[in-house]
């Protein structure tokens, strides 16, 4: 009896082994592209991927988050073919191949009941360095300003640092949230807060409380104003790869840079690029 079971187990495991070998061989035929990286870029690539799957059912693409730097690590170690970045490449990442897939505006957001509609860049900087601490100093109600920022290393934060703060720094007293959604949630629930998030995510979203995107120096944060250069707060979303991509990877990137791909991104609130290839 025991021996019978043993034989059965051996047969089963042999069967399993050969099954594994089979799937390994056929796995090479279907192309699988793994995209990983920035959580700011991911929601947009998710939408693109669904459309891509519909158009090309044989090419499989999977998208994972993790953050910009996780994307770089994934590409370097070969876990992912494409990395998503919401920040510029750092000095020791210059060897990677990269392409801009879209521009993303940065909106300064406040609670809809806040009376302030417009701030200058200097005022925003003053608020984030805490030289301005009360809303009444910038034409609002008499209340302490609660500043909300993103975590160190976030692409959105480094864009805000470069574009708004110049050579000053965000106050350490700033409350830190680790996603666009969390910042939006917090700002929409408290009248005294100010935050910054992706422009596309600042617009009205069904089922969520609204936030107000501020005009900067009198210019409204819209796609048109980013494109015509009057609204200066924007950063590029990058795709990176270990080397010049070919085959299925190239096909997916080409789709995103195509007119239909770019149009989807525009509808979702990003700003189209012509696809300048940096290297």
């Amino acid at each position: 009896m025991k021996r019978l079971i043993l034989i059965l187990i051996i047969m089963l495991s042999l069967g399993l082994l050969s099954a594994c070998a089979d799937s390994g061989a056929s796995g090479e035929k279907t192309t699988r592209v793994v995209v990983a990286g920035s959580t700011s870029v991911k929601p947009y690539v998710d939408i693109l991927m669904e459309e891509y799957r519909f158009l090309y059912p044989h090419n499989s693409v999977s998208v994972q988050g993790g953050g910009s730097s996780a994307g770089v690590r994934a590409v370097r170690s070969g876990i992912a073919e494409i990395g998503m970045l919401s920040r510029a490449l750092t000095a020791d990442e210059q060897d990677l191949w990269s392409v801009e897939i879209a521009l993303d505006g940065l909106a300064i957001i406040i609670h809809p009941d806040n009376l302030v509609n417009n701030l200058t860049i200097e005022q925003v900087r003053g608020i984030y360095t805490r030289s301005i601490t009360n809303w009444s100093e910038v034409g609002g109600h008499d209340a302490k300003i609660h500043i909300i920022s993103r975590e160190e290393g976030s692409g959105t934060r480094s864009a805000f640092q470069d574009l708004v703060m110049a050579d000053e720094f965000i106050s350490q007293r700033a409350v830190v949230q680790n996603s666009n959604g969390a910042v939006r949630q917090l700002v929409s629930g408290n009248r005294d807060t100010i935050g910054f998030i992706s422009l596309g995510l600042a617009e009205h979203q069904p089922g969520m409380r609204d936030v107000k995107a501020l005009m900067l120096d009198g210019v409204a944060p819209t796609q048109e104003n980013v494109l015509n250069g009057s609204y200066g707060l924007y950063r590029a979303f990058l795709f990176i790869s270990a080397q010049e991509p070919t085959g299925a990877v190239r096909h997916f990137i080409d789709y995103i840079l195509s007119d239909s791909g770019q149009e989807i991104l525009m509808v979702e609130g990003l700003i189209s690029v012509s696809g300048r290839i940096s290297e």
Partner: protein
Amino acid sequence: MKKKFWKKFRDRLSGRIFFILALSTISALVVITVFIFVSGMPLIAEVGLFSFIFGMNWSPSQGQFGILPMIVGTVSVTLGAALIGIPVGICCSIFMAEFAPAKMQVIFRPAIQLLAGIPSVVYGFWGMIFIVPAISSNLGGLGMSILAGSIILGIMILPTIISISEVSIIALPRHYKEGALALGMTHWQTILRVQLPAAKSGIVAGVILGIGRAVGETMVVIMVLGNAVAMPESILDSVRTLTTNIGLEMGYASGAHQQALFATGIVLFVIIMILNITAQYITRKKVKK
């Protein structure tokens, strides 16, 4: 003859297999420990242990790695949680061990176990939606504060404190209580003067393990503390704990920044180790007696 051989063989084999499996748990500990230290040590060596632990400024993008505000954050939130959790927890365990009728115990015991089973993200979400706005509208400020974190962590450490304290009260020899009552002490005096002192080491161990849980908790504090890296001035200020620092920034960290997060992990590791060893030392001392 043959059968005997097989029996012996199987006996020895099973022993070996269990040994190997047991070894894998220890090796997991070793691998994790070595990995954290190897990844984090270079940065501590570069920055210096003193300026890493007592540095006031944390801004990795400018090469500043000081975690004192986060150590203060961890300590203040944990203290707050202890202030809320310890009295409630110990009182609850006395009630369970001494006063609760059997029928009530049937309700209370599973309820407390259930409290331990609620995922921490659910606690955090509840805190974000309920506690934080409540603090904001009643006491002013943003609501994301030491107070919010302390309240929720205070609730989260209850099951640990209650179950360990209760067990150590119940495990006391019957004659302690009987002797005290026979000498004419009231029930309350018996609890306060005889049972609690006798069960002290078990209760303290439970409290320390509860505190260890509060120190190590990540998800809840990310959601309700606000994570500002500044020295708090009141319990309504936002702080960041050591765990949150790792959880918050790991996604985008690279290079020295990543090493600094591992170094934060080392500090956390050492704190938790000290707490656990203390708890074990206290319980072991009791067994010796």
